[in-house]
């Protein structure tokens, strides 16, 4: 059966390739940094967690001691790109759009593929595997069209990876921090602080505390999923649902959405807020700044919807 391990190996090979291109260009720090990361993709499922943890620490040491080099210049000039764009016309969109199209097809059809009565592709991971598969198909189409030298896709991947740099690793490191905070018992502490410092004696004040608490705790953890069990066990269920008789479905749905308002405002949600600034060459908080006004209005809207419909 094809499982998520297929995607992990694919990613490992790609990051390994990025390391090799850096090695060729004598960018030693970058080569070691990407090489260590690649190892955790290829062998991560088979080695002790302690080894993977040490590799992450080693990546940070390399990063702090060695300083990663920035991205190399593009291989083609703006004029060459314009000429190529005229020559290829809208065909250039075909490989790019093949990624979503093949992902879509895979998501709907892969579950019907089976060998000897067993599913060919892990049904729980269909979307991720489809996406991994789609990127390979897209690359094949692009290579057939453009006929680059074999090393070119990796050289291009290296240019973009080195532009994103360490920010590419941040989402995983934040997931690790979140797990550690849970392990250390952060949840009950935060819920306790809210209960102690905020008056929760009316449905409205408890609603505001729950929704704002979800947003704030999400800002801290970078992930509404981490905040939800804590705030709902601390305020949502005991007060909103049991004491004030709120509808549990409305409370939970709007609680989660209030957390999303926090996600829009925090650098801790690196894959949404930091990664795009690296990809688009923006200052670090540029995306958050644009999102904040909408997030604030939506938090107020969530509180209003929760309050108006949960206690009918």
């Amino acid at each position, binding site marked *: 059966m094809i499982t998520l391990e297929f995607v992990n190996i694919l990613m490992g090979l790609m990051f390994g390739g990025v390391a090799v291109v850096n090695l060729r260009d004598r960018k030693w720090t970058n080569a070691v940094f990407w090489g260590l990361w690649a190892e955790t993709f290829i062998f991560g499922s088979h080695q002790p967690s302690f080894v993977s943890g040490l590799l992450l620490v080693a990546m940070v040491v390399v990063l702090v001691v060695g300083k990663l080099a920035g991205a190399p210049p593009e291989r083609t000039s703006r004029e060459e790109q314009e000429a190529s764009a005229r020559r290829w016309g809208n065909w250039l969109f075909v490989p790019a759009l093949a*990624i979503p199209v093949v992902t879509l097809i895979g998501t709907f059809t892969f579950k019907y593929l089976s060998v000897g009565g067993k599913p060919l592709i892990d049904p729980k991971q269909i979307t991720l595997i489809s996406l991994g598969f789609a990127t390979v198909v897209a690359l094949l189409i692009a290579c057939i069209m453009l006929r680059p030298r074999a090393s070119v896709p990796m050289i291009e991947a290296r240019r973009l990876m080195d532009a994103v740099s360490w920010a590419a690793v941040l989402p995983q*490191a934040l997931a690790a921090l979140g797990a550690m905070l849970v392990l250390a018992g952060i949840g009950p502490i935060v819920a306790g602080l809210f209960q102690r410092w905020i008056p929760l004696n009316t449905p409205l004040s408890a609603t505001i505390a729950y929704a704002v608490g979800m947003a704030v705790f999400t800002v801290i953890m970078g992930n509404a999923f981490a905040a939800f069990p804590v705030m709902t066990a601390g305020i949502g*269920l005991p007060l909103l649902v049991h004491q004030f008789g709120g509808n549990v479905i409305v409370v*939970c749905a709007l609680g989660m959405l209030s957390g999303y308002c926090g996600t829009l405002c925090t*650098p801790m949600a690196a894959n949404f807020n930091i990664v795009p600034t690296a*990809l*688009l060459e923006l200052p670090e908080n540029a995306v958050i*700044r644009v999102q904040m006004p909408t997030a604030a209005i939506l938090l107020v809207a969530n509180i209003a919807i929760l309050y108006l419909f949960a206690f009918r």
Partner: protein
Amino acid sequence: MLPLLGIAIVIAGFALRINPLAVVVAAALATGLLAHHGIVEVISALGKSFVDSRSVAVVWLALPVIGLLESAGLKERARMVISNIKAATVGRLLLVYLALRQLTSALGLVSLGGHPQMVRPLIAPMAEAAAENRVGPLSEKLRRLIRAHAAAADNMGLFFGEDIFIAIGSILLIRSFLDSNAIHVEPKDLAVWSIPTALVALVVHGIRLLLLDRRIAKEKPDA
């Protein structure tokens, strides 16, 4: 209270502009150690969740093909296409993308968008070209604002669309949390209550995008 020190490290690190990856890993180690876990146990826990969350990196798999297409003029082509559509403005373009992203996410197709595969090669250059149509060459400040809005539209559409799909992670998390508290709910009921916020998000962010057009229109050409 000691675990809160980990959070303090993160806030201090970000404020002092120390490399965020180093700060986050240091905070994770400190949090584990302060909670009286041994160093081997802490590093193992770190390694386990790092490896368990590898799938967030799947978007980077798009980079070889995106880079290859960029060097063949994909961004330039995206610009040319928009230059030929006279009705295109930044606000309208991003509003359409926001609505599509919400709609596809609501159908569970969250991987159709994303920053590396859609925003950088297609949406951002198109938005910039739409602005150039109106006011000519862009100032660096305006160019950055437009790019940031392109990234934000992707996030908004994803966040306030995905919860309408019944099999998405957040709905499943709510359900299993409630199950463990002996409360049983149907995913579809949770999904239905995500719709009002989704509509508010479309309207509020849509208005902001259209206001962005007015701001761009005020920008003088060659400013």
